[in-house]
């Protein structure tokens, strides 16, 4: 199978599930689990948090340009190999699977429809 690398540029947040904010958004935990699932399918997944690794944003022309033009609302920015496939929302597992070039899960755990999710840029 010829899969693509998925790279996620997250907004500034304490942690990938957002548990440190005043409220926990279950969709962030869902998205994190989806990325883990993707990795388990053999996809190379990388994830950068603006608050922890801002250098990665500077080092990527697309992430840099997105921040330049749309500010933090461009995040999360998701790339499949060198192509920006999504910006400003957390996509569903099906979408992630499609972009990466793997068959989506048969385990029936996840929503099929795209589920744009409000960002959770908070920390303790």
């Amino acid at each position, binding site marked *: 199978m010829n899969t693509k690398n998925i790279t996620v540029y997250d*907004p*500034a*947040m*304490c*942690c*990938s*599930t957002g*548990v*440190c*904010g*005043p409220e*926990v958004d*279950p*969709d962030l*935990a*869902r998205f*994190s*689990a*989806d990325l*883990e*699932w993707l990795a388990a399918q053999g996809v190379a997944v990388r994830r950068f*948090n*603006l*608050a*922890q690794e*801002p*250098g990665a*944003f*500077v080092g990527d022309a697309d992430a*840099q340009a997105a*921040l*330049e033009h749309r*500010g*933090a609302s461009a995040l999360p920015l998701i790339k499949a190999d060198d192509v920006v496939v999504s910006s400003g929302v957390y996509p569903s597992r099906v979408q992630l699977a499609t972009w990466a070039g793997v068959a989506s899960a048969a*385990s029936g*755990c*996840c929503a099929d429809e795209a589920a744009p999710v409000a960002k959770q*840029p*908070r*920390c*303790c």
Partner: protein
Amino acid sequence: MSTDTLLRLTQPTPFLFFTGKGGVGKTSAASATALGLARAGKRVLIVSTDPASNLDAVLATELLATPTPITGEPNLFGLNIDPEAAARAYRERVIGPVRDVLPASAVASIEEQLSGACTVEVAAFDEFTGLMSGDATAREFDHIVFDTAPTGHTLRLLQLPAAWTSFLETNERGASCLGPLSGLKNSQERYARSLAALSDASETTLVLVTRAERSALSEAERTRVELEKLGVTNQFLLINGVFHASDRDDALALRLEALGQAALAAMPRGLAALPSFEVPLKPHNLVGLDALASFFDQAPFHGLSEPRVASADVLENVAPLSSLVDEVAAAGHGLVMFMGKGGVGKTTMAAAVAVELASRGLPVHLTTTDPAAHLEGTLAEEVPHLRVSRIDPLAETEAYRERILARSRATLDDDALALLEEDLRSPCTEEVAVFHAFSRAVFSSKREIVVMDTAPTGHTLLLLDAAGSYHRETLRQAGAGSRLGTPLMRLQDAAETRVVIVTLAETTPVQEAAHLQEDLRRAAIEPYGWVINRSLAATGTTDPLLRARAAAELPEIRAVKAKHAERVFLVPWSADEPTGVAALRSLVQPDHPHVPQESSCSNTP
């Protein structure tokens, strides 16, 4: 040498920790020990990890975040770990390299993420393990003396190396929620070395500082057990401020002496088994190197030739606590918060005001966020109309975790739940959970009277900081013109909230209270007034040593009235530890003598 008492008992180890309930004299004991070692020819570094440190005043030197030479003492250096400054430095390390490259809005969002309580805690912890694991700074010294923060904070600080080590070990997915700590994972070795040093008796000595008071002793016992569990077994007990009455006709002095002896006789067995030594009560404040050098002196006090005690002006325009109670009772609801350093009597003041309000038939909710709360002990009796609750960090964290997981079970699969559960084990969670509990109590003051005994200063400020971030976040989500109230907004509303600062009429507590007031004002909270607690000047004592201490109170009381507070409440030193309802109410409505007896003390021209 004045530290003989201590040094004879212990071969001084490279690391010496002084811990104990706030106000017992940790800073004095730690500084006096450091001074003694330095004058014996050792190179010594004294470190304060207390966010509201008063080490500067005690050593008469402005301490920096790097070893600062103490004036006149070539072998003694001091260092102040200011958690806020450490957090700023940490932020700069993350943001500095990208500040000019990323757009301003992105930089601002990073800054906001890294300005919370977690970052502060973590950055301070990082400095601490640096010294414990033998970094370049540490290797320059024979001894490092830690004047640690009040006990609740101390416990967390000392437990952190253990907590983090196991957290890092068990976090299989690469520690997704280390958040601000993410960059520190590479230093795991450093945490392991700190932990090893803490539990090695040849490296670390723990000095439990206490007073001859029941609550201070039980706090010391709690700490002893906690730290023993962590492997810190090389422990000593220092009983500070032991008082022996020299005027056998002064009932107050005799009672004070008897109380102290009774408390010592009833000392928990585990504490009594530790090697211990007593330091007598001093007639003066221990500020400055000369005073410090006398800390371990055992010589009895012979009295001042002509002690000047209360002059009438000092006690003018001071109110009893009942005037505060009258105002709150008239409103029928609202929030009364007692703030101040550990050991000044916030818990007692909160309990006294709550009991008095309840006894007037008003429904009152008395609550505490103090991690080392002894409120339940203070108020064992049941009082009608009074509800007592405690914000227990552990219980709150557990309840918060459960709430989040329960809500998420419907929407998440097993993998996502496992991930969430793992993140909820992060140390951030406790801060958030406690903050939620705090907010709930603040909001319930719309309907009832809520009296809060907040935690020691550092922790209080962290809570307020969390409230501040929450405030900004809520306003941003709600958009401009929102009428949503936030906890901080309620704290800022003088009609709803009365913040009362509690202090003692001693140099260091007054300075600390003034710092606290500045911090509150930065958050746009104007304190309602100050309570000067346990004032000897407000009693009629004739004991020479107590009179000398009463005389030393006067300039402090004057300064509070002139510089710091519009409303000053003076609570006389009470012979009995106020634990029952009657004793608590008598603090609010004192019917015992209040004005010093002119016959014995009048010296004013």
